[in-house]
Protein backbone atom coordinates (compact mmCIF):
# COMPACT_ATOMS: atom_id res chain seq x y z
CA UNK A 1 0.00 0.00 0.00
CA UNK A 2 1.25 3.45 -0.79
CA UNK A 3 0.98 4.72 2.76
CA UNK A 4 3.20 2.03 4.16
CA UNK A 5 0.47 -0.12 5.69
CA UNK A 6 0.96 -3.77 5.16
CA UNK A 7 -0.97 -5.95 2.75
CA UNK A 8 -2.18 -9.10 4.45
CA UNK A 9 -3.23 -11.41 1.66
CA UNK A 10 -2.33 -14.78 3.08
CA UNK A 11 -1.43 -14.85 6.71
CA UNK A 12 0.78 -17.85 7.34
CA UNK A 13 -0.50 -20.52 9.63
CA UNK A 14 2.29 -20.19 12.14
CA UNK A 15 4.08 -17.05 13.15
CA UNK A 16 6.70 -17.01 15.87
CA UNK A 17 5.29 -15.33 18.95
CA UNK A 18 8.67 -14.03 19.94
CA UNK A 19 11.77 -13.49 17.92
CA UNK A 20 15.13 -14.60 19.32
CA UNK A 21 17.07 -11.77 20.91
CA UNK A 22 19.81 -11.98 18.33
CA UNK A 23 17.45 -11.52 15.39
CA UNK A 24 18.30 -8.61 13.11
CA UNK A 25 15.43 -6.32 12.19
CA UNK A 26 15.30 -4.18 9.07
CA UNK A 27 13.64 -0.78 9.03
CA UNK A 28 13.13 0.63 5.54
CA UNK A 29 14.14 4.25 4.89
CA UNK A 30 11.14 6.07 3.45
CA UNK A 31 12.97 9.43 3.17
CA UNK A 32 16.39 10.11 1.76
CA UNK A 33 17.23 12.57 4.54
CA UNK A 34 16.98 9.80 7.13
CA UNK A 35 20.28 8.49 5.79
CA UNK A 36 22.13 11.70 6.62
CA UNK A 37 24.13 11.80 9.84
CA UNK A 38 22.04 12.78 12.82
CA UNK A 39 18.71 12.35 11.08
CA UNK A 40 18.11 8.63 11.55
CA UNK A 41 15.95 9.25 14.61
CA UNK A 42 13.23 10.52 12.27
CA UNK A 43 12.90 6.96 10.96
CA UNK A 44 11.67 5.87 14.36
CA UNK A 45 8.94 8.45 14.89
CA UNK A 46 5.57 6.78 14.68
CA UNK A 47 3.25 7.98 11.95
CA UNK A 48 -0.21 9.07 13.02
CA UNK A 49 -1.83 6.00 11.42
CA UNK A 50 0.59 3.41 12.82
CA UNK A 51 0.27 1.21 15.86
CA UNK A 52 3.90 0.14 15.75
CA UNK A 53 7.12 0.59 13.80
CA UNK A 54 7.17 -1.66 10.75
CA UNK A 55 10.23 -3.91 10.55
CA UNK A 56 11.25 -7.06 8.69
CA UNK A 57 13.23 -10.06 9.86
CA UNK A 58 14.95 -13.02 8.23
CA UNK A 59 14.84 -11.41 4.81
CA UNK A 60 16.74 -9.11 2.50
CA UNK A 61 16.18 -5.39 2.07
CA UNK A 62 14.73 -6.11 -1.37
CA UNK A 63 12.17 -8.45 0.09
CA UNK A 64 11.45 -6.06 2.94
CA UNK A 65 10.74 -3.28 0.43
CA UNK A 66 8.23 -5.59 -1.22
CA UNK A 67 6.58 -6.57 2.05
CA UNK A 68 6.20 -3.02 3.30
CA UNK A 69 4.94 -1.88 -0.11
CA UNK A 70 6.20 1.66 0.23
CA UNK A 71 6.14 3.67 -2.97
CA UNK A 72 9.80 4.52 -2.68
CA UNK A 73 12.57 3.61 -0.26
CA UNK A 74 16.19 4.65 0.04
CA UNK A 75 17.70 1.74 1.92
CA UNK A 76 17.40 0.04 5.26
CA UNK A 77 18.70 0.27 8.81
CA UNK A 78 19.33 -2.78 10.91
CA UNK A 79 18.92 -3.20 14.64
CA UNK A 80 18.82 -6.08 17.02
CA UNK A 81 15.79 -7.44 18.86
CA UNK A 82 17.74 -7.34 22.12
CA UNK A 83 18.25 -3.58 21.81
CA UNK A 84 14.55 -3.10 21.28
CA UNK A 85 13.50 -5.17 24.28
CA UNK A 86 16.13 -3.43 26.43
CA UNK A 87 14.13 -0.25 25.83
CA UNK A 88 11.05 -2.02 27.24
CA UNK A 89 9.53 -2.33 23.80
CA UNK A 90 8.26 -5.51 22.19
CA UNK A 91 8.68 -7.00 18.73
CA UNK A 92 5.50 -8.67 17.57
CA UNK A 93 5.51 -10.67 14.33
CA UNK A 94 2.35 -10.19 12.35
CA UNK A 95 3.26 -11.55 8.91
CA UNK A 96 5.88 -13.79 7.41
CA UNK A 97 9.15 -11.89 7.76
CA UNK A 98 7.36 -8.86 9.16
CA UNK A 99 6.83 -7.52 12.66
CA UNK A 100 5.97 -4.35 14.49
CA UNK A 101 7.93 -2.73 17.27
CA UNK A 102 5.24 -1.99 19.81
CA UNK A 103 5.28 0.33 22.76
CA UNK A 104 6.57 3.41 20.98
CA UNK A 105 4.08 6.17 21.74
CA UNK A 106 2.85 8.66 19.19
CA UNK A 107 4.39 12.12 19.61
CA UNK A 108 0.84 13.35 20.02
CA UNK A 109 0.45 11.19 23.12
CA UNK A 110 3.84 11.25 24.83
CA UNK A 111 6.19 13.75 23.17
CA UNK A 112 9.19 13.25 25.39
CA UNK A 113 9.18 9.46 25.29
CA UNK A 114 8.45 9.35 21.56
CA UNK A 115 11.45 11.57 20.80
CA UNK A 116 13.75 9.87 23.29
CA UNK A 117 12.93 6.38 22.04
CA UNK A 118 13.48 7.55 18.47
CA UNK A 119 16.95 8.71 19.47
CA UNK A 120 17.75 5.48 21.29
CA UNK A 121 16.58 3.28 18.43
CA UNK A 122 18.54 5.37 15.95
CA UNK A 123 21.63 5.09 18.10
CA UNK A 124 21.31 1.31 18.10
CA UNK A 125 20.62 1.06 14.39
CA UNK A 126 23.09 0.80 11.54
CA UNK A 127 22.36 1.74 7.96
CA UNK A 128 23.04 -1.44 6.00
CA UNK A 129 21.56 -0.60 2.62
CA UNK A 130 21.33 2.60 0.61
CA UNK A 131 19.59 1.40 -2.51
CA UNK A 132 16.80 3.48 -3.91
CA UNK A 133 13.76 1.34 -4.69
CA UNK A 134 12.28 1.54 -7.19
CA UNK A 135 15.46 2.67 -8.86
Amino acid at each position, binding site marked *: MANGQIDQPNQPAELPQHLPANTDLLRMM*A*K*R*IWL*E*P*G*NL*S*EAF*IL*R*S*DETGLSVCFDCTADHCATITALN*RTYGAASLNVQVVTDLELTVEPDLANHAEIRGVPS*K*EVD*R*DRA*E*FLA*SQLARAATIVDQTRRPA
Partner: protein
Amino acid sequence: MSSQLNPIGSNIASFRSQRRSVNPRVPRTVTSQGYPPNSMASTVTISSARAALSMEPVLNLADVEFVSVDYSADFLQEPIVTKEIEIKNFPSRARDAIVHDMDELMAGKEDEEKPTEYAYANARRIIESAYGKAKIASGVSTTVPKPLATTDDVGGIRLLWNLGAKNVRLNFGADDDRQTYLYFEAGLNHGVEPLDEEHLATRLAWLTAR
Protein backbone atom coordinates in the same frame (compact mmCIF):
# COMPACT_ATOMS: atom_id res chain seq x y z
CA MET B 1 50.22 50.99 15.47
CA SER B 2 52.49 53.76 16.69
CA SER B 3 51.38 57.34 16.81
CA GLN B 4 53.94 58.09 14.16
CA LEU B 5 52.33 55.68 11.75
CA ASN B 6 48.85 56.69 12.79
CA PRO B 7 48.99 60.29 13.93
CA ILE B 8 45.24 60.55 14.31
CA GLY B 9 44.83 57.44 16.48
CA SER B 10 44.65 59.39 19.71
CA ASN B 11 42.05 61.71 18.20
CA ILE B 12 39.48 59.05 17.43
CA ALA B 13 37.97 59.02 20.91
CA SER B 14 37.61 62.77 21.00
CA PHE B 15 36.20 62.71 17.49
CA ARG B 16 33.56 60.19 18.55
CA SER B 17 32.57 62.23 21.56
CA GLN B 18 32.24 65.32 19.40
CA ARG B 19 30.30 63.37 16.83
CA ARG B 20 27.64 62.33 19.31
CA SER B 21 26.82 65.93 19.98
CA VAL B 22 26.48 66.83 16.32
CA ASN B 23 22.95 67.47 15.25
CA PRO B 24 22.10 64.52 13.00
CA ARG B 25 20.06 66.82 10.80
CA VAL B 26 23.13 68.86 9.93
CA PRO B 27 24.57 67.40 6.76
CA ARG B 28 28.03 65.98 7.10
CA THR B 29 30.24 65.39 4.15
CA VAL B 30 32.26 62.36 3.34
CA THR B 31 35.04 62.85 0.88
CA SER B 32 33.98 60.69 -1.97
CA GLN B 33 36.28 58.11 -3.49
CA GLY B 34 33.73 57.09 -6.06
CA TYR B 35 31.61 53.95 -5.89
CA PRO B 36 32.63 51.38 -5.01
CA PRO B 37 35.15 53.10 -2.77
CA ASN B 38 38.79 52.29 -3.21
CA SER B 39 39.32 50.06 -0.22
CA MET B 40 43.05 49.91 -0.86
CA ALA B 41 43.49 53.64 -0.44
CA SER B 42 46.07 54.44 2.18
CA THR B 43 44.09 57.26 3.74
CA VAL B 44 40.39 58.02 4.00
CA THR B 45 39.34 61.51 4.91
CA ILE B 46 36.05 62.13 6.64
CA SER B 47 34.90 65.56 7.67
CA SER B 48 31.82 66.98 9.31
CA ALA B 49 30.67 70.40 10.29
CA ARG B 50 32.54 70.23 13.59
CA ALA B 51 35.25 67.67 13.22
CA ALA B 52 37.57 66.03 10.77
CA LEU B 53 39.23 62.65 10.77
CA SER B 54 41.75 60.89 8.63
CA MET B 55 42.39 57.21 9.06
CA GLU B 56 44.12 54.28 7.45
CA PRO B 57 42.18 51.18 6.44
CA VAL B 58 42.58 48.54 9.15
CA LEU B 59 41.73 45.47 7.13
CA ASN B 60 41.10 44.35 3.62
CA LEU B 61 37.44 44.77 2.78
CA ALA B 62 37.67 41.84 0.40
CA ASP B 63 38.08 39.55 3.43
CA VAL B 64 34.95 40.76 5.15
CA GLU B 65 31.57 39.28 4.44
CA PHE B 66 29.11 42.00 5.29
CA VAL B 67 25.56 41.19 6.16
CA SER B 68 22.43 43.20 5.80
CA VAL B 69 22.99 46.57 7.43
CA ASP B 70 21.02 49.74 7.13
CA TYR B 71 23.62 51.97 5.57
CA SER B 72 22.96 55.28 7.25
CA ALA B 73 25.17 58.34 7.31
CA ASP B 74 26.21 57.29 10.80
CA PHE B 75 27.44 53.95 9.48
CA LEU B 76 29.54 55.64 6.82
CA GLN B 77 31.13 57.88 9.43
CA GLU B 78 32.26 54.94 11.56
CA PRO B 79 35.69 53.35 11.36
CA ILE B 80 35.58 50.06 9.47
CA VAL B 81 35.64 47.66 12.41
CA THR B 82 33.17 48.15 15.22
CA LYS B 83 31.52 45.62 17.43
CA GLU B 84 28.19 46.29 15.75
CA ILE B 85 29.34 44.77 12.47
CA GLU B 86 28.77 41.03 12.44
CA ILE B 87 30.83 38.82 10.20
CA LYS B 88 29.82 35.41 8.81
CA ASN B 89 26.94 33.18 10.00
CA PHE B 90 25.01 36.15 11.22
CA PRO B 91 21.76 35.01 12.86
CA SER B 92 19.61 36.72 10.24
CA ARG B 93 21.42 34.76 7.55
CA ALA B 94 20.81 31.48 9.40
CA ARG B 95 17.20 32.49 9.88
CA ASP B 96 16.83 33.21 6.17
CA ALA B 97 18.23 29.78 5.35
CA ILE B 98 15.66 28.10 7.59
CA VAL B 99 12.82 30.11 6.10
CA HIS B 100 14.09 29.18 2.65
CA ASP B 101 13.97 25.48 3.55
CA MET B 102 10.44 25.85 4.89
CA ASP B 103 9.45 27.65 1.71
CA GLU B 104 10.79 24.68 -0.25
CA LEU B 105 8.62 22.35 1.80
CA MET B 106 5.62 24.56 1.05
CA ALA B 107 6.44 24.48 -2.64
CA GLY B 108 6.44 20.68 -2.56
CA LYS B 109 9.49 18.53 -1.97
CA GLU B 110 10.16 14.88 -2.78
CA ASP B 111 9.39 12.51 0.11
CA GLU B 112 7.76 15.24 2.15
CA GLU B 113 4.17 16.13 2.94
CA LYS B 114 3.25 19.69 2.15
CA PRO B 115 3.08 21.60 5.44
CA THR B 116 -0.20 23.11 6.49
CA GLU B 117 -0.55 26.88 6.46
CA TYR B 118 -1.00 26.69 10.23
CA ALA B 119 2.31 24.89 10.77
CA TYR B 120 4.17 27.14 8.34
CA ALA B 121 2.92 30.40 9.80
CA ASN B 122 3.61 29.24 13.33
CA ALA B 123 7.10 28.00 12.49
CA ARG B 124 8.06 31.10 10.58
CA ARG B 125 6.85 33.45 13.29
CA ILE B 126 8.76 31.68 16.04
CA ILE B 127 11.96 31.20 14.04
CA GLU B 128 12.13 34.83 12.99
CA SER B 129 11.40 36.07 16.46
CA ALA B 130 13.81 33.68 18.20
CA TYR B 131 16.70 34.50 15.88
CA GLY B 132 16.00 38.19 16.40
CA LYS B 133 16.27 37.68 20.14
CA ALA B 134 19.41 35.63 19.74
CA LYS B 135 20.97 38.43 17.71
CA ILE B 136 20.18 41.04 20.32
CA ALA B 137 21.43 38.90 23.16
CA SER B 138 24.45 37.75 21.14
CA GLY B 139 23.87 34.39 22.78
CA VAL B 140 23.83 32.70 19.41
CA SER B 141 26.61 34.08 17.31
CA THR B 142 28.69 32.15 14.90
CA THR B 143 28.31 28.44 15.49
CA VAL B 144 24.64 27.58 15.33
CA PRO B 145 24.25 24.99 12.59
CA LYS B 146 21.48 24.98 10.04
CA PRO B 147 18.71 22.59 11.04
CA LEU B 148 17.15 19.90 8.92
CA ALA B 149 13.65 20.91 7.85
CA THR B 150 11.21 18.07 7.34
CA THR B 151 7.54 17.27 7.82
CA ASP B 152 5.50 14.68 9.62
CA ASP B 153 2.85 12.60 7.88
CA VAL B 154 0.04 15.11 8.44
CA GLY B 155 1.77 18.34 7.42
CA GLY B 156 3.42 19.39 10.66
CA ILE B 157 6.91 20.90 10.36
CA ARG B 158 9.92 19.50 12.17
CA LEU B 159 13.25 21.31 12.51
CA LEU B 160 16.19 19.30 13.82
CA TRP B 161 19.54 20.56 15.08
CA ASN B 162 22.37 18.16 15.86
CA LEU B 163 25.60 19.41 17.33
CA GLY B 164 27.88 16.86 18.92
CA ALA B 165 25.90 14.98 21.52
CA LYS B 166 23.23 17.68 21.69
CA ASN B 167 19.93 17.68 19.85
CA VAL B 168 17.18 20.24 19.61
CA ARG B 169 14.01 19.31 17.74
CA LEU B 170 11.07 21.55 17.05
CA ASN B 171 7.70 20.06 16.25
CA PHE B 172 5.14 22.48 14.82
CA GLY B 173 1.79 20.70 14.82
CA ALA B 174 -0.19 20.61 11.60
CA ASP B 175 -3.13 22.25 13.34
CA ASP B 176 -4.22 23.60 16.67
CA ASP B 177 -5.23 20.13 17.88
CA ARG B 178 -1.75 18.71 17.38
CA GLN B 179 1.30 19.05 19.54
CA THR B 180 3.73 21.93 19.12
CA TYR B 181 6.80 21.55 21.30
CA LEU B 182 10.55 21.85 21.68
CA TYR B 183 12.49 18.70 22.53
CA PHE B 184 16.10 18.80 23.73
CA GLU B 185 18.52 16.02 24.42
CA ALA B 186 22.11 15.57 25.51
CA GLY B 187 22.89 11.95 26.24
CA LEU B 188 20.35 10.71 28.75
CA ASN B 189 19.36 14.26 29.71
CA HIS B 190 16.25 15.13 27.75
CA GLY B 191 12.97 16.96 28.03
CA VAL B 192 10.19 18.90 26.38
CA GLU B 193 9.57 22.63 26.62
CA PRO B 194 6.97 25.02 25.25
CA LEU B 195 7.88 26.10 21.75
CA ASP B 196 8.13 29.88 21.80
CA GLU B 197 10.82 32.39 20.88
CA GLU B 198 12.17 32.64 24.43
CA HIS B 199 12.68 28.90 24.88
CA LEU B 200 14.08 28.49 21.38
CA ALA B 201 16.60 31.31 21.76
CA THR B 202 17.70 29.84 25.09
CA ARG B 203 18.00 26.33 23.67
CA LEU B 204 20.01 27.49 20.67
CA ALA B 205 22.43 29.16 23.06
CA TRP B 206 22.52 25.90 25.04
CA LEU B 207 23.13 23.95 21.85
CA THR B 208 26.15 26.02 20.88
CA ALA B 209 27.58 26.44 24.39
CA ARG B 210 30.76 24.49 25.06
